[in-house]
């Protein structure tokens, strides 16, 4: 009998989001290696099967099917992009394969999971709602901002984060003065930044892509926004590379992330070290969440006492998993109760201001 545990990973290995795919795979592979080196789960080794979603739903579904039908995987982790995950859900459901999401933040995914419908979907990642709330709260209460300009990526992630920002901002007397979304790969932000310069916004709410942040920061510098307008939101503000691109602009930036390399816990530090040793580059958030999710799955299998999917599912819903950022449990929508980490750039270094979890208000069906 085949004793290995077959784990599928769906991620964007090609296309504009390929970078996320690479980090995800590396993170997951590192975890698998750690587990296998430690003797596996009750003696069973994990084997990982990677499939490319190209960041598009149809390819994501194809990839999922192939993992299920050809590679006969028992578990799937994926995808990064919410649109793809949403499309994968029914496929996993039909096949009765456990789908663990590690990086998509669109709330809809767990609105429709657990008691919401899809019994086989779990998410080990905080939602946009949570993120939007704590950023808005911090910006208003700690920094005293009231006028905000939106400049986010034009995707379900960027757009839904703003949707929730709008939901909570009135609670903090905040006001949005302009709203713009950029396409992946956009490089020219001068027009919008000039508008923001003139409309009196104190902060730019940016739920964006890591690679765009330096461009925007540079152009803010060019337009003389450094020190006048602050970046808040999410978009790898905290990495050395980003800060180096325009230190003056990023000073004071506020970010909420599921994880960041500077997070101060022994597990986290150890992960950063191992990852850097293995791949010669510092991990990012996506590497971490995939690494973490594999470990979470391993613990669930261990607690279930067998790789049987139904048992593992039950184990997951009852699990108390100690992650690098705190204890993880799942609610009845199979959504992990996870903290978001809030940080601010001070003196060119990220400084952590706290970790906040928030209960999700599920829409009444």
């Amino acid at each position, binding site marked *: 009998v085949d004793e290995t545990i077959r784990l599928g990973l769906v991620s964007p290995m090609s296309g504009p989001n390929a970078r996320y795919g690479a980090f995800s795979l590396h993170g997951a592979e590192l975890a698998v290696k750690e587990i296998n080196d430690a003797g596996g789960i009750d003696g069973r080794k994990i084997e990982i099967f990677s499939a*490319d979603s190209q960041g598009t739903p*149809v390819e994501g579904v194809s990839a999922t099917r*192939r993992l299920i*039908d050809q590679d006969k995987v028992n578990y799937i982790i994926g995808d990064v992009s919410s649109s793809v995950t949403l499309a994968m859900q029914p496929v996993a459901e039909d096949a009765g394969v456990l789908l663990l999401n590690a990086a998509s933040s669109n709330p809809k995914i767990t609105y429709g999971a657990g008691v919401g419908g899809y019994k086989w979907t779990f998410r080990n990642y905080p939602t946009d709602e949570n993120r939007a709330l704590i950023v808005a709260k911090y910006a208003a209460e700690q920094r005293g901002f009231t006028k905000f300009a939106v400049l986010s990526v034009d995707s379900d992630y960027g757009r*839904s984060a703003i949707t929730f920002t709008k939901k909570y901002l009135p609670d903090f007397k905040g006001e949005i003065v302009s709203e713009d979304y950029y396409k992946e790969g956009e490089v020219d932000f001068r027009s919008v930044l000039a508008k923001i310069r003139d409309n009196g916004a104190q902060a730019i709410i940016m739920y964006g892509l890591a690679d765009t942040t330096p461009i925007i920061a540079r152009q803010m510098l060019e337009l003389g926004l450094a020190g006048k307008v602050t970046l808040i939101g999410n978009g790898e503000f905290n990495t050395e590379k980003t800060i180096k691109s325009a230190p003056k602009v990023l000073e004071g930036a506020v970010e909420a992330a599921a994880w960041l390399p500077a997070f101060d816990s022994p597990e986290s530090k150890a992960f950063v070290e191992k990852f850097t040793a293995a791949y010669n580059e510092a991990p990012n958030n996506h590497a971490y969440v995939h690494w973490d999710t594999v470990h979470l799955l391993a613990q669930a299998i261990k607690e279930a006492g067998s790789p049987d999917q139904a048992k593992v599912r039950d184990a997951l819903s009852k699990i108390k998993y100690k992650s690098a950022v705190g204890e993880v449990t799942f609610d009845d929508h199979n959504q992990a109760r996870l903290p978001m980490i809030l940080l601010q750039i001070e003196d060119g270094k990220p400084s952590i201001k706290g970790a906040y979890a928030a209960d999700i208000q599920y829409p009444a069906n």
Partner: protein
Amino acid sequence: MSLTEVSQSQQRRDLRLPLGVLLLLAALCAPFVASTYVVHALIIALIFMLPAHGLNLLVGYTGLLSLAQAAFFGIGAYASGLLAVTYGTPFYVNVAAAGLAAGAIALPLGIPALRLRSTSFVMCTLGFVIIGQAIAKNWISLTRGDMGLSSIPKPHFALGPLSFTVSGTTAFYYLALTVGILATLAVWMIVRSPAGRNMIAIRENETLAESVGIPTWRYKLIVFMLSAVFAGVGGSLYAHYLTVVSPLTFQMYYSTTMLIIVLGGGAGTISGVVFGSLLFVGLTEALRVTPELRMIAYGLCLLVLVFWFRKGFAPVINRLWDSIGSAK
């Protein structure tokens, strides 16, 4: 002379008919022999075959190179997605509505676009896809923007007391196969008729076609709409199969895939489109090695196609088919 011709063709038909039946049987048996994954790939191939058929009428027969197919595909997908999600209309209503919506929208788009020639027309059609995506993203009250439409129900048929839901992969395969065969037959009937010949005339030389009395403008418009109908139906099936629709359905990548199916299969041939959709969807699946190598291989395939199979694979298939027919 005419006598020998007749007997020859009869001899041929005798051999090709059983083979055709065999192929059909193979298609019918596929879910029982092939893995679910292969069946899934076949479903995607069958779905993409619909817009490709439409595109073939446009590119292969009428000579209008268009990249708009993804736009109509997207319109079809959204039309049936919205109907299904908001009004819960039955599947066949959605499919019909998707086709009609795509066809109807093609009319106002086609009227200005078809006044353009060659490259301008191509770019204009590409514009439809890009603008379509922008609308899908930004008209949030209708389309829910990037969040997309999810939980589109599986096709459900209800005829009086009988009701049936197409839920599994196998069932959906038969549904797609049926639609695919019907569409292929429809295209076959169109291109064999005098209308098909008129379309070819327009492709060959529009002014000359005009001068022998072919209302080229009306033909082009109708074929444009027809191709949109095919794409719309394809989009509808796609939505019901994947159960989600997002603005990414409006993608230049889909338009080029459809174009590659048609040109690579053999523009102006039906067998080419059928074969092309199997090959080029199959190929992308088969090439799933490492993503970059796969794309490089795909690109090289395109170059091979251009240099060695300028007419696509259809001539090769037809020669094969003929040799089967004339073999004793």
